[in-house]
């Protein structure tokens, strides 16, 4: 059985990419079309005409039709729709792993961390000014406590933010599985 080389597979991949298919469907169609081209090669056609014959069936129109069909028929079921967020619906047929989906998903949390960090920085500034004007640096004075709280809030916000970013990376994997 003749096999396509990576460049030839890439040509078909590029062709499918232009049609805006979602990730899962794209990979599946790619395998299908490559199989078909290999079949034509096997019965003796040169690559160019094998590709042409395959793409005759898989023309832009039929691929678009398929994509539309997916959007209409394979949407969420009632139960899923009740639980889905606006983002889930918006990104159902779009590329989630690109990043915009996770950015939107974590927006609320990021906002809270940013506010916490800003508040902490503010507390640190106020405490710093007071402690300097007192010319006496003591952690056990009221302003010293404010300083400690500020430092804690800033560190907490930064740590939580990075922990959340690590979680981002795993989101696409779970979705695909």
């Amino acid at each position, binding site marked *: 059985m003749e*096999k*396509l080389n*990576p460049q030839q*597979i890439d040509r078909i991949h590029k062709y499918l990419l232009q049609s805006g298919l979602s990730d*899962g*469907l794209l*990979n*599946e*169609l*790619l*395998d*299908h*079309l*490559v*199989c*078909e081209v290999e079949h034509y090669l096997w019965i003796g056609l040169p690559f160019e005409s094998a590709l042409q014959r395959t793409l005759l*069936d*898989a023309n832009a129109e*039929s691929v678009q*039709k*398929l994509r539309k*069909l*997916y959007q209409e*028929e*394979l949407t969420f*079921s009632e139960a899923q729709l009740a639980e889905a967020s606006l983002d889930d619906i918006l990104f159902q047929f779009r590329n989630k792993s690109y990043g915009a989906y996770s950015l939107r998903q974590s927006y609320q949390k990021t906002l809270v961390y940013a506010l916490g960090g800003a508040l902490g920085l503010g507390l640190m500034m106020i405490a710093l000014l007071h402690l300097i004007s007192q010319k006496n640096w003591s952690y056990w004075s009221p302003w010293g406590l404010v300083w400690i709280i500020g430092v804690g809030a800033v560190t907490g916000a930064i740590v939580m933010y990075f922990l959340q970013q690590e979680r981002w990376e795993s989101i696409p994997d779970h979705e695909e599985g």
Partner: protein
Amino acid sequence: MEQVSSEFLRGTLKTIVLKLLSEQNKMYGYQITQAVKERTRGELTLTFGALYPVLHKLEQEGLLINESVEVDGRLRKYYSLTDSGTQMAIQKISEFERFVDYMQQLFQTPPNLAYGN
């Protein structure tokens, strides 16, 4: 010919896919289209535009599961029946066989019975 068969094919796609998968452990999309082609000696062809929506619909209903395997540098998705899929396959196949039976009875009505003569 093409037109007529595609009209009948549409209603039986699910059954065809379930039947093929019940005979083989796991299959991928192109393999299913080829199996249909081979068994009918090229008379029936499943287009990818008809096949994949059915596969994904069945998967969504929990009748199929898929696993992706890397083959020659690309991902290939194999489908296999779940437990409820196996049940459904048996049910659909017997339902369809009964339907074919009825159709045959319908078409083979003896002339002396036809139209109340």
